[in-house]
């Protein structure tokens, strides 16, 4: 299915074909929004991830926030989110510096959707977590450290 979609997107008459495929129920409507950004999710370091996202070196902004608790009782489930008061935010992403692949998730926000998204991520260890925001076509960033604790009996 992935391959099929990729081929479709590469062909010149992609849009029309997509419509047909959607109508035929072959692909889920709305799924063909954008290609899953393999390069960005495969990137290891922060810098490579930002590059793959086309974000360059984002400016730090006080109007962007990594939301969620500063401490996690377990690294398998860490509640984390992004919020921002910047105007016209079209995309937000969550990056975890010390994970094997920094990018955890990215979100496309159509007009009318608030720049305030929460999810839950895995963290291998205590790490800086970054919120990336695209506002008026420019990238901004904020960070905070989230502590992952060992817990329970220890084994």
């Amino acid at each position, binding site marked *: 299915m992935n391959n099929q979609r990729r081929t479709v997107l590469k062909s010149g008459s992609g849009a029309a074909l997509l419509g047909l495929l959607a109508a035929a129920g072959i692909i889920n409507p709305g799924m063909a929004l954008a290609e899953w950004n393999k390069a960005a999710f495969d990137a290891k370091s922060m810098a490579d991830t930002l590059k793959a996202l086309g974000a360059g070196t984002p400016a730090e902004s006080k109007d962007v926030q990594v939301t969620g608790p500063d*401490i996690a009782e377990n690294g398998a489930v860490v509640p984390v989110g992004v919020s921002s008061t910047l105007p016209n935010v079209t995309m937000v992403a969550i990056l975890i510096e010390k994970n094997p692949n920094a990018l955890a998730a990215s979100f496309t926000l159509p007009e009318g959707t608030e720049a305030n998204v929460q999810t839950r991520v895995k963290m291998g260890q205590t790490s800086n977590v970054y919120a990336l925001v695209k506002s008026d076509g420019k990238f901004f960033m904020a960070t905070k450290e989230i*502590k992952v*604790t*060992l*817990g329970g*009996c*220890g*084994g």
Partner: protein
Amino acid sequence: MKMKLALFCMLTATVAMPAFAQSKPVEPPGGKYAKDAEQMFLSSFRADNPKYWMARLEQDETMKTCGLYRDNPPRKVAEQLEKLNRATIRYPVDGKLIGDWKEGQKLAAVGTGGHIGFIQPDPPGRLRGGNCYACHQLAKAEVAYGTIGPSLQHFGKLRGNSEEIVKYAYDKIYNSNAFTACTNMPRFGLHSWLTPEQITHIVAFLIDPESPVNKD
């Protein structure tokens, strides 16, 4: 080993006598069903547990006695147990009781090792740690510490590093019941859970002025 056995026997004799007439005795757990319960407990394990795993269910005199008194034995019984356990303590061949605090720091944080069974056993050779943080506060930077045991933060800073303190720390880790019968703390040396050398590393972690236990 023979000496240990002899001591166990002595103790059994002591316990069997009504040496605990000091306060109203608490009913042993299980009451009149204790024997049935022991049999039921032992027969509740999977038949495919190897024998050397099942051996872990055997109780020495300390375990048995502690259970009988719900971990709160009368003073006389406790003293017997402590004496018995003191006799088990062994020291490293070179006699040095302070090892490398950095190794000790690692061991203090590790809670894995020694898990058996079929669901989530530890892979062979997995490091067995002391898991000190499960129960004790140690280095300031580690916020995820338990409170079953007392805080050991600034252990060396507060108590110094006299020979007496060093030996106490070593002995306590080797066999906690040498000091307090039926304490919650495992007898790490007695069970060879930690080697004498590993114990010296944890001692260093507690005592060394450079260790984060004392420095921060």
